[in-house]
């Protein structure tokens, strides 16, 4: 039933995007992005049900829609996911899609590493927004000042800080990026939004920001190995419906001092290093059950108030 609903939404957004093809670039991209976001969600649902054919079709739809709307990094993650699905299948089912996936992956990689400067026609506002989005993803998070410098160096054209903020806010509304900071006098940091990515492997071991609602405390699901235990943590699942699920580890000082917030289902932004769940065992937390992505948070922000509620100190404590 849910699948049907998503399928209808995706096809109508693709048709709308087609209609806007030569009329309105902004609307076209917005429809494509919506279709792509829903396609990733739907593909993940089919993947959980082991319906590989449908799953592959929708990841491919997502990859192409992102690529067309110039969301090259999101597109790359879909192609990468497709390739990894084929590797896990160990059979030649739906092989014609495999070629397309490899071809798409190398095409998008080429754009990201070589051709991106020629891909954006900066006379149009929508293209300037896409170029801003591209640089945010390329840097895996950046401050406005640094983004201004990068933009000017890469595209040989000037841009002011206010415009960058406007573009970033628009991108945040379109679920492409996440912002921390601002509005006035405070640094404005913009990060790629990793919640709806097909796979987050490209972001492992890198510092990033994620936002979501604390759903469930999972600390009890992990056993503590005292031979390796080097940090006292609490472990939570963010946004239950996000696939692949994402866990966030919270330092004990942050948990204890904000226990009322965590019990209420805190909406948070967390900055830290993203990794596989298996990395938790290096800190002494073992689990065979969970194979999610995990963010070891250094900084926690209450998303409702924008207040920084925790900043990890250097030592001791």
């Amino acid at each position: 039933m849910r699948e049907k609903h998503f399928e209808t939404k995706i096809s109508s957004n693709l048709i709308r995007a087609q209609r806007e093809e030569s009329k309105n670039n902004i609307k076209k991209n917005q429809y494509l992005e919506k279709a792509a976001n829903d396609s990733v969600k739907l593909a993940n649902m089919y993947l959980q049900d082991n319906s590989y054919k449908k799953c592959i079709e929708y990841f491919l739809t997502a990859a192409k829609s992102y690529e067309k709307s110039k969301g090259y990094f999101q597109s790359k993650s879909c192609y990468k996911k497709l390739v990894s699905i084929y590797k896990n299948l160990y059979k030649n089912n739906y092989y014609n899609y495999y070629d397309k996936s490899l071809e798409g992956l190398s095409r998008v990689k080429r754009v990201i590493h070589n051709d991106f400067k020629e891909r954006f026609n900066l006379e149009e506002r929508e293209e300037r927004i896409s170029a801003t989005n591209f640089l945010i993803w390329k840097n895996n998070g950046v401050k406005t000042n640094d983004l201004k410098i990068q933009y000017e160096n890469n595209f040989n054209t000037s841009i002011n800080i206010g415009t960058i903020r406007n573009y970033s806010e628009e991108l945040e509304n379109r679920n492409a990026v996440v912002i921390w900071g601002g509005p006035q006098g405070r640094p404005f940091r913009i990060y790629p939004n990793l919640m709806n990515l097909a796979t987050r492997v490209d972001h492992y071991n890198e510092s990033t920001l994620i936002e979501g609602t604390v759903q469930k405390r999972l600390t009890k699901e992990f056993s503590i190995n005292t031979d390796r235990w080097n940090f006292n943590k609490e472990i939570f699942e963010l946004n239950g419906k996000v696939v692949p699920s994402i866990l966030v580890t919270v330092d004990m000082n942050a948990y204890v001092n904000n226990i009322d917030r965590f019990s209420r289902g805190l909406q948070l932004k967390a900055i830290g290093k993203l990794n596989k769940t298996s990395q938790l065992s290096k800190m002494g937390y073992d689990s065979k059950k969970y194979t999610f992505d995990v963010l070891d948070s250094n900084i926690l922000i209450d998303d409702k108030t924008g207040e920084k509620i925790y900043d990890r100190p250097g030592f001791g404590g």
Partner: protein
Amino acid sequence: MTDLVSEDKMENHFQTEDGLILHLLRKLSNDFDKIFCEVKDNMLSFIGARNHLSLKFNFSFNKGLKWINKKEYNINKKYIFDKNTIKNNLRWFKTRTNLNNTKRLELRFKENQIEIKSQKVDTKLTTEIKNPPIPIIPKRENDGNFFVLNPTSVYNQIKSIQKEIIKIQYDEDNGLTMSNDKGNPLYKIDYTTDGEFNKKIKTYCYKAPLLVSFRLTKTIDKSVDFIFQDNGATQLNMKSVGHPNIDGRIILTSVSRIV
């Protein structure tokens, strides 16, 4: 009215002649911003947790404390108290002299608060949230078990080490020693052990939580078992000599960047 009286009589509460429980709770509030409290079956526990330190102090009802009324068969209540609430409401229990003058101390475990009553005290501790999820306090296996003979001296030694990280080591030549992460100055710790150790074992932990641990041993009359394993977490088991109903377990994480 009759109902209310009978309800009140049926409350879970216990009585003791000893205020050390609340003295210790007040001491813990010096080092922990929030302290968890759990009353389960025949045990009252105080739990504190920080980034590199977890501890649990247990008070057993079987020895010394007695239930006056036990309403529920399987009692299980949880609370979390702020350090300022503890400090302000347990002023009487700050000094040892006052502890000795505490008679017929009663603790009543209500839904959102613990009421504390004695001849001279009538106060309460209100929980910040109902049934807080309590942090897990891991437990080491009994390997590398050393019984420290003079915890006060160890406390002074830790204080004198001017580094963030402390190395604890055992080898056949020097016995149990403590030093900064570079190995100097080297302090020998007086200990006894019931096991035999042929190998060299060492671990690193942060100074601040180690200092907290040994400061607490002074509060409950010293008796410390040091348990550590090569490059792993360090555990201290404490038993109060004068109060057999009190025991504590403190566990410190290891330092990852050196391991």
